[in-house]
Structure formats: structure tokens, C-alpha cells
């Protein structure tokens, strides 16, 4: 095992698949000569050549729609958006064609779209968003949100193997900040299986992506209060691991749903509504949601701190639940 950053683990997963399966190729703006805005594919064009690491024009619909066409012809495209925010430019293609083609026409669309997402470094309204909730609502799409380097690699390989359009949200704020042991060989991490990041018995936190670490820190603080907090890392938002979430909810009877995207209509609502419906008799307190307020993502650090859920916000929420 080698110690890899989250970013290196993504590169490693992608390289592994590209070496193993010559159908896999990468397409995106500046992914070739430059190696990608975040250098995920640094050195790839040298290794795989210009027709497997393709510098695309600044044209997101051509990139993602082109990936779909290539996938239908039997390739396994991985498309990179320079920032997840720019996936809005390919929204129509994804919801109209990629998501529906299997169901309505029988044609599978095995594409992966890599989406550097999330805030925390003053990227402002267009370089910080977490748009997974918008896509999780569209039947036919899958949404993957790894939190750890190990999952980043295993989930990316699973996403590439998957016969469906998969949106792979890689959290930029974890890129270089999170480092851990990652197996060197190829492995897959199944889509739709949550991970218990931390076991606990009094309150469950359901979350994903960078918020896993926020939850972990908050949980540690609650230890001091004698409150045992379980942290469930969903890993994939669509499909989401309902059995694991309900099991945790039934065990602890108190649940906090936490995400970095804005609150109203965010995917946390789906999770909270499901728990409240299906574990109704088991709940000792209302399911609480903590999420970003309903605004665009602000640029100034002072504002961004108020926007992204902070450890102290989660601690306060957990205390409220503990005392309920």
C-alpha cells in the first residue's frame, strides 16, 4: 500500500483502468498537454497518446454528448469538466439523452463525468458548487461522491465499469488535504454501499464528500459530552444506501443529515423524508438537516465560512439532538 492524496488516488484509479482497458479514454479541456486544471491527468497524454487523452474545445455539450456517442459505439469515455459548475452547460444532454436512453430506447450509456466540486478556498459562486442534488433527482443517472482516497480510486473504477452514466464528484478541497493508504492493485468499491466512517450509538450523521470530515470532527467533540455519534458516509448519493441509513437511524433513533450543497430541495431532503417516513416509529427526535443556506456560494472567506457548514454548526446541531 502506498500513501496517496485523494487527488493521486483519482489519478491512480484512472490510470489503472486506462492501462487495463484500451476502451477507456479521457476527454476534457486542457486534460492533455496541461494534464488537467488540477493535474489529475498529468503525464497521461505521454503515456496514452493524444487520441486517448483528448484536449477538447471549450464546449461542454460536445464533450459530454460526444462521450455518450463514443460510449454507444463501445468505448468507455471519461469526460472531465474543468469545474463541476460547468456541467450546467451539459445539463440538457445529460437529462435528455444520457439519463433516458437506456430506459426508452434500450441503449446503455456507459460514461463517467468527472466533476471537481465543492468549496472552501474562495472559488466564488462558479468554482465551488456541489450540484449533485440536481442530478440525483433525474432517473437514470448515478452520482458518486467519494470522501477518502481509497474510495476515490475504488469508486472511480466502479464508475468506469458501470454501464450507466455516472457523475463522479471529486471534492477539490480534499484533493491535497486528505492523504491515506491506498491499495496499489486494482479494486472496485461498489456503488450504492455506504461506509460507516465512525460507529456510534446515540446519534447518526448521514453525509458524504468533504462533510464526512466535518462530521468526524464534530463527533469527536461530542465524545467529550459523552454522546456517541455514528457517521455514515454515503459514498454514492444515487443510488443511496437506504438500508444502511435506516439501520443506523433505527439504532440511534436520532439523525442529522449534513451536506455542503444548499438546503432547500437538496438531496438531504430526500434522505430526511425517507427516514421520517420509514423509521417513523423509531425516531426519538425530528430528523435534522444541516446544509448551506439558500444562496450562491460566496467569494469572501468571511462569507464562505458562514456558507459552508462548519464543525461548530454540526456540534450545535448534534447537541440539540442529544438534548431533545
Amino acid at each position: 500500500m502506498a500513501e496517496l492524496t485523494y487527488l493521486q488516488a483519482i489519478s491512480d484509479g484512472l490510470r489503472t483502468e486506462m492501462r487495463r482497458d484500451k476502451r477507456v479514454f479521457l476527454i476534457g479541456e486542457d486534460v492533455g498537454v496541461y494534464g488537467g486544471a488540477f493535474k489529475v491527468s498529468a503525464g497521461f497524454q505521454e503515456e496514452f497518446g493524444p487520441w486517448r487523452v483528448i484536449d477538447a474545445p471549450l464546449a461542454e455539450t460536445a464533450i459530454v454528448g460526444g462521450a455518450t456517442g463514443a460510449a454507444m459505439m463501445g468505448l468507455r469515455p471519461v469526460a472531465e469538466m474543468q469545474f463541476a459548475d460547468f456541467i450546467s452547460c451539459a445539463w440538457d444532454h445529460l437529462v435528455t439523452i444520457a439519463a433516458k436512453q437506456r430506459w426508452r430506447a434500450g441503449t446503455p450509456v456507459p460514461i463517467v463525468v468527472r466533476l471537481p466540486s465543492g468549496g472552501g478556498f474562495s472559488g466564488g459562486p462558479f468554482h465551488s458548487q456541489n450540484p449533485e442534488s440536481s442530478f440525483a433527482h433525474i432517473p437514470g443517472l448515478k452520482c458518486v461522491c467519494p470522501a477518502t482516497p481509497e474510495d476515490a480510486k475504488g469508486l472511480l473504477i466502479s464508475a468506469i465499469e458501470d454501464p450507466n452514466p455516472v457523475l463522479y464528484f471529486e471534492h477539490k478541497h480534499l484533493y491535497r488535504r486528505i492523504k491515506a493508504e491506498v491499495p496499489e492493485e486494482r479494486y472496485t468499491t461498489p456503488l450504492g454501499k455506504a461506509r460507516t466512517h465512525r460507529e456510534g450509538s446515540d446519534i447518526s450523521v448521514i453525509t458524504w464528500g468533504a462533510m464526512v470530515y466535518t462530521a468526524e470532527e464534530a463527533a469527536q467533540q461530542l465524545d467529550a459530552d459523552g454522546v456517541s455519534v455514528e457517521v455514515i458516509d454515503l459514498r454514492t448519493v444515487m443510488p443511496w444506501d437506504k438500508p444502511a441509513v435506516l439501520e443506523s437511524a433505527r439504532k440511534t433513533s436520532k439523525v442529522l443529515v449534513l451536506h455542503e450543497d444548499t438546503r432547500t430541495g437538496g438531496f438531504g431532503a430526500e434522505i430526511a423524508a425517507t427516514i421520517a417516513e420509514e423509521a417513523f416509529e423509531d425516531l426519538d427526535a425530528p430528523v435534522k438537516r444541516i446544509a448551506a443556506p439558500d444562496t450562491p456560494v460566496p467569494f469572501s472567506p468571511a462569507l464562505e465560512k458562514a456558507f459552508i457548514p462548519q464543525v461548530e454548526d454540526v456540534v450545535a446541531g448534534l447537541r440539540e439532538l442529544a438534548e431533545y
Partner: protein
Amino acid sequence: MAIAREAEPVGSLTEVREAGLDRDDLLGVYRNMLITRGVEERGHILYRQGKIPGSFYTGRGNEAAAVGVATAMTSEDVGTPLHRDMGVHIVRGVEPWRIFANYMGRVDGPARGRDGNVHMADERLGMIAMVSHLPAMLPVATGCALAFRIREEARVAVGWFGEGASARGDAHESMTFAGTRKLPIVFVCDNNQWAYSTPTHFEYATEHVADRAEAYGFEGVVVDGTDVLAVYREARRAIDKARAGGGPTLLECLTLRMEGHAVHDDAFYVPKPMFERWAESDPIESFRTWLRANAELTDSEEDEIAAGVKKLLTSSLERAEESPQPDPATLTDGVYATPEDLDTPHHK
């Protein structure tokens, strides 16, 4: 001022032979055009009988364009035909009974009752099912061409779009990408002069849509879309060029949409004289005349073909009506693909 090349009509049988069609092929083309129109005419009757849910669209006037282009494709090529391109499905071998079944939302239609109209395609016959959103299939067709380029296969993608839909960004991004990378694709514009009720001058400001090809670094060609042989020859040239690594072509087939946008539309906004003028160059009638003058089509051959088509359509209708309605219990099946779905010719 036009920039695109304006294609000449096809003259003699010799010229056609050079372009790759022998006399049997020509009769086949004629037959396919008859089937194309016949399927839509019968479909229209079904619609009036209340057997087709939703709306109903036809491509009357576009038979030569659709059949001509499709005839120039090989079985290995791939295309994304649209709502005026019934002829493409016919040429590539979709059996008419399955088209009627699709119209009626039955399980044997390529879309199995899940989608209607011409939103269908038999993937095994090298087609990809269109969506309503226009021209959203062009990026997909471009991606098919990209796959052929990556694998260095001698295959070509054909992407259809209407002159109205040429205004949307998807057309631009596809042509930009295909042009910069010289991908093996032919962009076929069905220019039927109306986008629903909108005339062409509100959709583009050049003389021809094909005048735009220059802006993408490849050739634009305008052809009389009612002349099946001219369409065939130009499509063949463009496809051969793409196959040989020469990059994309924008082939514009000029026709008139001879009916309303869909069944509910009486096309009141189209000037009568325009219909009259274009009625004189009906694609099927023109080709019949040409065949008689240049390929010695006889009365008995003509009758035989017509009778064969009629029989085919009648039996197809019967077979389609026997096709079951989809089972509501299957509604949620297959939203997500399984690995087995990839066991198709393309996914090896």
C-alpha cells in the same frame, strides 16, 4: 451570397453506375421511397382511426433526402435520423410492422411503448433513437465519429438536423469539434424551409445553411432534396471523403415540408404557391419519371413494385395490431442498465 457548393442534378444511368448503383439498386431505392411514404400514409390513417396516441409527424416531401443519404451509408456506418427521416429506417431494414407497432405504442416497436412517433431506432441496424430536443443528437453522432477515429475504423457517422434546429448551440459545438478534429461525420440538414411555423430567415441569415460549413473548416453542399440520385451521389461523396480521413461535410437537402408540422397543423402560414411549386417536384414522381426515361422502368415492373409494397404494408398493419400493449408492471424496469445490456455488437 452563397458560399456552399450547389450540386448539379444527376444525368444519365452511366453517371449513376459510377456512383455505385446498378439497375436493381435503383429499383430498390424506388421501392424504399414508396414504402417510406406508404408507412406514413398508413400511419396517418391509423392516427385518424384513433389508434395512435399523442401526436403524429410525417416527412412527406423528404423521402428522397432520407432514402438517398441512407442508401449511401454502409451497414457499418451509424446514424441519428429524425422525425422527417422515415426513409432511413426503411433503407436500413426496420420492418414496417415494427414501425406501426411503435406508432401505436406496442411492445414490438423499437421503443416498446415507452416512446412514440419516430423516437425509435433499431440499434442493431446502426441507428440511435432521437430525442425531441433538437438537434441534441448531433453531439452524439459526433461522439460516434470520435469513437471511429480513436479506433481507426473506416466507419462514418451521419447526423441529421433540421434547418430550424441549426440555430441551437448543439449544432455549433458538434461542428466545431468535428471540424477541428476532422472526424468522420456527415452533417445532413433536412432543410424543409419551415421550422414549425417559422420561416428560414428567422433561423439563419445566410442563403443556405450549408454556407456555414466554411465557418467550421469543411465543405458545405446544397442539393435538391427531391432528387434522390443527386442526394445519393452527394451523400456518397461526403461519406467516402469522411471514410478516407477527409473530415466532415455539411450536406443540405433542400425540400419543402409538404404537410403541417404535425397532424394538428394545417400549415396556414405556408403560402399556397409554395406548396404548388414544390408539388411539381414530388420526389417519388420525379424519380419514377427518371427511371422510365433513363432506366427503362416498365409498366409491369412499376405495378409489381407498387403491389408488393401495398401487400407489405397491409400485412405489416395486421401484424402490428397483434402486438401487445406494454405491461404496466414493467414500467420501472431498465431505468438503469445492467452489465448484460452491454452484450451488444458495439460493446466488446
